[in-house]
């Protein structure tokens, strides 16, 4: 097969499987938030500029990876594209995890369980 022509795109190019899916998501402090499981799109019709990325779907994909199918996507799994600050070996957010809905489980365990244990409210000495 002869070499195919190259389509030049003005802007940063990302391939979903290579650069987005399964990438770890880190918050503004470098704290892991989850792993990119899917990408949410808008205006998925043929032709034109192409569907726009609305956000990333993070976490909650373990069971579907093992058993297939698509599980329910709740708001706490969504991270808006507006919150993405950079993409390299990980996806870096411009917000702290504590301000994201996905971190509610971590917050709940920290406040309701660990926080009630002796010494659970401060760093180890």
């Amino acid at each position, binding site marked *: 097969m002869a070499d195919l022509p190259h389509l030049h795109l003005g802007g940063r190019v990302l391939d979903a*499987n290579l650069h987005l899916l399964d990438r770890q998501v880190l918050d503004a402090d470098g704290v892991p938030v989850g792993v990119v499981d899917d990408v949410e*799109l808008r205006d998925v019709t043929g*032709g034109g500029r192409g*569907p726009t990325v609305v956000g990333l779907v993070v976490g909650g994909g373990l069971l579907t990876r093992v058993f297939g199918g698509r599980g329910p996507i709740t708001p706490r799994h969504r991270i808006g594209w507006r919150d993405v600050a*950079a993409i390299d070996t990980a996806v870096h957010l411009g917000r702290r995890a504590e301000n994201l809905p996905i971190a509610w489980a971590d917050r709940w365990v920290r406040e309701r369980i660990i926080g009630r244990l002796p010494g659970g409210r401060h760093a180890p000495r």
Partner: protein
Amino acid sequence: MLLGDLMRRPVTSGDDLVGFVVDCRFVVDGPPDGLLASARIAGLIVGDRHREAFLGYERTGVRKPLPLAWFFRRRERLAFLVAWDDVERIDAHGVHLRDGWTRWSAAITRGD
């Protein structure tokens, strides 16, 4: 719609099966949307049903060692890029391309 709903869908041109969606190429080139520019789908990487990205080396121009470079060049030829402009419609049966669609290289080169 989620990207996962597009992946592995059959791609057809008329009555001919062209391949299957194995990856999706985004480009970040829109107006500012938060901290980055907005991103959109620029095209679909089409290959046969079992074609997966092999660590990405087949698209990123590996030159050495030579045996691996030869191997990845062969894999690169089995997948190609279809620009979103050439997508006529998407329905329950898959992705349908318009007449006269163009087959582009799936390689990501410097400057992209």
